[in-house]
């Protein structure tokens, strides 16, 4: 069996097999889940690039179950596997076995998405990856209405993606096109097809004004699942823009670059401003995500080659620091049973390791030189400036200053200041919790110092 197929199917099958375990076996299911996620890292590195294809449809257009990482998607898939491994290792929720199974299923569907070389398979996994998050929201989320909002928004995007894929297949004759050099699509319907893709990608990323599903979803999900969703699932749209829209229909992207860039800029500023005034710690990170991903949208819209390279660095960096932030905030919430900045305070004195982890993640998020966020931002800004969009660079710089403001506020209100009386004092990070964020923090530092491998593809 080809290794790339194993990579996609292993988490899904393992997740299903996990359901056979007795329900009470918490440590075993968590340990097995972590092992499976770690195994996918190995298989991905060992054979993720080797392509495998199996014919699915030959009429009305050619479609195949065609998997295989491109240098670009390999990095995102690697990010996914690492983040999933850390998230499962740290997760502590009721009905753990079912939750771990769901996380593995989520990982498998997203691996399928990023490794797919066929548009139809991409669309299939796109819809499929919404289902575990929906189940997470109804089974472990805070409010059921959130699940609806998530599902309806994202599936509406999925449907336009589906229609666009079908139209693409009929006109172009094949959907087996992702990562194929020289496959350029131009036809009478190209603009509409691009519109269908773009809508799905923009909802998933999200950008203003399609973002309203995102803050309640991110704050409502258990932190281990939201760390995967915000770190990787939100990148599906950006990956789609780069690997599908830019690669297959560059003319249309260029034609509508202006509106795209404006949407990105609005998200950038709007997300930062809202993050400044939120008191819910998870919502601050959610809105900061909106802001940061707006920068990547700007990079994509600029069409500049350097900016796109920077976008990959920033995609990985954002994945790492948002996963780390959500995970650490999850630890905080678990300990203190609240995540309101008004009630938290002074945790740093009792929990130095917790404070250190939050500090590194927050500093990476605000773009401190030497950490991964900075490397990505810098390359993007240079690229966008080269492309001639000076106003966008200025907007981005304003947002970066705002990012420093809200992230420092987040850190200070939780870790510094006087200890509040009404939150119980709990022990510092256990070694399992610490191990679960270490890979993320280490990667942030390594990429911050040496981002070159990421700039190569």
């Amino acid at each position: 069996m080809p290794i790339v197929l194993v990579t996609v199917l292993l988490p899904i099958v393992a997740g299903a097999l996990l359901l056979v375990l007795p329900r009470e076996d918490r440590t075993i299911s968590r340990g097995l889940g972590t092992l499976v996620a770690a195994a996918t890292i190995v298989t991905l590195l060992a054979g993720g690039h080797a392509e495998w294809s199996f014919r699915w449809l030959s009429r009305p257009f050619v479609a195949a179950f065609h998997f295989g990482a491109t240098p670009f998607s390999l990095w995102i898939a690697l990010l996914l596997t690492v983040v999933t491994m850390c998230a499962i290792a740290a997760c502590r929720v009721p009905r753990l076995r079912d939750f771990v199974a769901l996380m593995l299923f989520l990982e498998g569907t997203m691996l399928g998405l990023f490794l797919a070389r066929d548009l139809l398979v991409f669309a299939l996994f796109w819809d499929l990856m919404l289902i575990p998050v929906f189940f997470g929201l109804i089974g472990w989320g805070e409010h059921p209405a959130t699940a609806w909002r998530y599902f309806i928004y994202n599936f509406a995007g999925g449907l336009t993606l589906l229609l666009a894929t079908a139209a693409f297949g009929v006109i172009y004759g094949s959907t087996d096109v992702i990562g194929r050099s020289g496959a350029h699509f131009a036809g009478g319907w190209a603009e509409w097809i691009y519109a269908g893709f773009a809508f799905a990608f923009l909802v998933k990323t999200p950008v203003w004004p399609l973002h309203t599903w995102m803050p309640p979803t991110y704050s409502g999900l258990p932190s281990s699942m939201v760390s995967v969703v915000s770190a990787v699932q939100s990148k599906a749209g950006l990956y789609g823009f780069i690997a599908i829209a830019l690669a297959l229909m560059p003319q249309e992207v260029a034609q509508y670059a202006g509106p795209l860039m404006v949407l990105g800029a609005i998200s950038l500023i709007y997300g930062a401003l809202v993050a400044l005034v939120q008191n819910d710690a998870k919502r601050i990170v959610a809105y900061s995500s909106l802001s940061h991903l707006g920068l990547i949208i700007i990079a994509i819209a600029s069409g500049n080659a350097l900016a796109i390279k920077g976008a990959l660095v920033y995609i990985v960096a954002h994945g790492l620091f948002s996963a780390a932030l959500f995970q650490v905030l999850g630890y905080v919430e678990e300990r203190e049973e609240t995540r309101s900045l008004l009630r938290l305070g002074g945790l740093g004195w009792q929990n130095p390791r917790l404070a250190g982890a939050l500090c590194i993640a927050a500093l990476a998020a605000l773009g401190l030189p030497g950490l991964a966020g900075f490397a990505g931002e810098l390359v993007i800004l240079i690229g966008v400036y080269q492309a001639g969009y000076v106003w966008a660079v200025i907007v981005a710089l304003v947002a970066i200053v705002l990012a420093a403001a809200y992230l420092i506020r987040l850190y200070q209100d939780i870790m510094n200041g006087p200890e509040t009386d009404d939150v119980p004092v709990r022990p510092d990070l256990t070694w399992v919790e610490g191990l679960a964020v270490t890979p993320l923090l280490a990667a942030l530092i390594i990429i911050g110092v040496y981002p070159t491998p990421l700039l190569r593809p």
Partner: protein
Amino acid sequence: MRIPHEAAAAAMKIPFTHADWLAVLPVGAVAVAALVVLVADLFNTGRDQRYLSVGIGLAGTIVAAILAARQFGHSHDAFFGGFITGGFATVFQEIILIALAGSLVLYGGIGPAQRVAGMTAIMLWSACGAMLMAGAANLLMIFLGLELLSLGLYALCGAVDRKAARESALKYLILSSTATSFLLFGSALLFGATGSVLLADLVHPWLTFNPLFWIGAGMFLIGIVFKLSLVPFHTWTPDVFEGAPLPVTAFMSVATKAGVLAVFARFIYAALPSGVAERLLLPVWVVAGISMIVGNVGMLAQHDLKRLLGYSGIAQVGYILVALAGVTPLGLRYAIYYLTAYAFMNLGAFAVAAAISGEDEEGAHLSAYRGLARRRPWLAAAMTVFLLALAGLPPTAGFLGKILILATSASTGYLWLAALLIVGTAISLYAYVKVIRAMYGRDEREVPNLHPLVPLAWASAAICAVLVVAIAFYPVMPSNILPLVR
């Protein structure tokens, strides 16, 4: 000199050849099985008559399925062009037989214990009618098949002692008869216009100028649209579905659609003169588009699974018609693919409902699904597959079917239908996923008493779930189903 004379006399007495009878052998097998069921019941004094009747019925179904499959690829005009065997008829007959088998299994599982033999026999004969429609190539055979199907269903709808069932039977009788009369009057006018009952004789260019043809074809199509329960003739469906016994609803929802769609497909593909189809059928496509919206909106407020699937069926027929719009050979294949997928997902959903039901059909109420994932995890998983398939989500055949239908409409230029399909699907999600949420949600409210699992229905649900997923990845589509008439 004597021998030809004798042959002529024999031909006068029995004008049909051996091959003619062979053509309807699958139908005959089902009909004979029904007789055997009745006779066997006379000698059966055991307590549980259900399993004997249902077992004989299933055996007849399997024999018929094998006989029908042997006809695939052997096109033959039987009864002077009245009944055509071969690819198209075979495919639709197999779908009908699948529906029959699935419903019989449910009947064995939860059907009322009394009068089983009679009801089984009627269901088998009803299926005969639908199978005749699958191969019917003249107007009389269409009418014969339709009536045989409908008459059986009237009786089956009222087969339990419930007020709702009697109401359902009466409603179905009156409204369905109205539809039949449209169809019959349309057929009469078509005969008046052409002087022939053969669908093949309708393909004359000069008919375009004959108002009798237009009125006749229009009324014929009204009858068809009525039977397919498209808007504005859809209001009876949820009521009838709700009142009828669960196995009968399962049978009706698939077999009627398959039979009527076969007639419709043969009519539009084979019987319309060139240049007529686009103008004559436009109202049908408009009606299909509206049905996708109305059916899906209607689902939103339902609390009864049978009503929900009734409204769902209105929309699903709309999807299938989108594939047929444009009248392309590929479109027909995709319509058949979707119909097959629909048969499995619909029968599967009914099987899950039956598996958690007792004689009072508690599984028909959506409240029975609250927290099902904790009580019956595998059954809940199967139901999730069926609901995802009905909603058109991966990894199910519903997803691939939708893709294929969208691709067809993109290539034939009916993009407005594709857009309506997308909007309808988006609306339907809420209704389907609401059930999934109820199954997996954390609602701790009181749930109705748990019945012991019905093993037959459980097995049927499992088979359907596997097939719904499997044919998404190995799409089986018959290739040589054309030509439909000669």
